[in-house]
């Protein structure tokens, strides 16, 4: 993946100015202090934000994004939240299978879930979507180490390229990921 001369600003404040990075494909963890632009980079890559200039190449086009906030639909149960992103040709049982693998009851009401459970539903949704690459914003927030390793293993097994925002080197190690460190200017 290559990020060339990327510039982006909110109002007058530059988040990236002529940012350049080049990494191997596979799983990459973006690390850096809070507010340095990790989430912004993921949103730029998901197409939710338009860069002022520059380009990102070498990363598959069809990307699913696991948001930093879960962005689940509270009026649907876990299975329906995941099934929502399935296409007509997808296996309808995929959502229940993924949720069970993540130790979530598919029929469970979202509003009665803990933060860690919601993260896993959001992860199941990102994994269920028919994408070529994953953009994961702090996917293991609220998970204990065993669950974190289990989720990391599931992400690795997809074989998809992934860009993962995290603060933890242990998470990067569990994912077997390369690390892209960014600093605040």
């Amino acid at each position: 993946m290559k990020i060339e001369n990327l510039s982006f600003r909110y109002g007058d404040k530059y988040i990236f100015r002529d940012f350049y990075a080049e990494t191997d494909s596979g799983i990459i963890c973006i690390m850096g202090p809070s507010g340095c632009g990790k989430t912004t980079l993921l949103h730029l890559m998901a197409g939710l934000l338009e860069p002022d200039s520059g380009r990102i190449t070498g990363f598959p086009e069809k990307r699913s994004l696991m948001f930093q906030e879960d962005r689940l639909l509270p009026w649907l149960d876990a299975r329906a939240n995941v099934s929502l992103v399935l296409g007509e040709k997808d296996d309808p049982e995929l959502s229940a299978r993924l949720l069970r693998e993540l130790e979530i009851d598919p029929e469970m009401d979202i509003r009665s879930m803990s933060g860690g459970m919601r993260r896993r539903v959001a992860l199941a949704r990102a994994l269920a979507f028919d994408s070529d690459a994953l953009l994961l914003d702090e996917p293991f927030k609220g998970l204990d180490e065993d669950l974190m390793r289990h989720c990391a293993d599931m992400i690795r097994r997809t074989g998809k390229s992934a860009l993962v925002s995290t603060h933890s080197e242990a998470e990067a190690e569990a994912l077997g990921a390369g690390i892209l460190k960014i600093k605040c200017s």
Partner: protein
Amino acid sequence: MEMRTDGKTTYSRITDGKITDGRNWWRTPAAVLFWIAVWQLASMAVGKELILPGPVAVLKALWSLVRTSTFWTSILLTVLRIMLGYVAGVALGCLLAFACSTSRVLDSLFRPVVKTIRATPVASFIILAMLWMSKGGVPVLMSALIVAPVVWGNLTEAYAARDRGLDEMAQVYRLGRWKRFRFILVPALLPSLRAACLTGLGFAWKSGIAAEVLSQPKTAIGSNIYYSKVYLETPELFAWTASVIALSFALEILVRKLIARRDPHED
């Protein structure tokens, strides 16, 4: 209300957001009896049935009315007119809210109209409508005109305040229009629509009866209220008014049941 007792303590539960207590079931009937007593005393103090009839005289008048077919046909036609206007008003409010929320041009076009309708006195509309249409149509139009802006206001505000993060989620996961509408927009707006339906019902009922009083359709509660006033039959006036209040409560219960939450996961 659900109530259990173990012989020592009476347990109560929260119903419709109110804490109910098994020991206080008598409070509402007692309050009603208290106000009926106040009414009786006031009537005795005034001493003129023409000015303020007592509860017994009103009950007698009501008993005479319920034994006539006019009473029941008036109630039936009034309810039909007002509910027709109410349903049309809810539908119109939804359509206008959809138009204003999805198109800036339509918003610029319709917003001032809806706001003007909301600010115009009902009486002005009634008088105008009497010039334009049949007497029976006036209460229908009034109910619709009163309800539509309430529904429009609630829905446009709820649409503007919706969670934009869910729109981004829909964009990332390439959800189609139908999925966005059915699974994101409708559930997000439904609580506001429910609230508007309940508020609008009371408005529709009051404006519909007022329209009947002024336009006097052949068979209608409002017309009978007007005739009671003209012929100085004050107990009948009270009896018709009591019927209106009872019908209003009954319709509210009915609408509440119709629009009650059905999906256990729905907010």
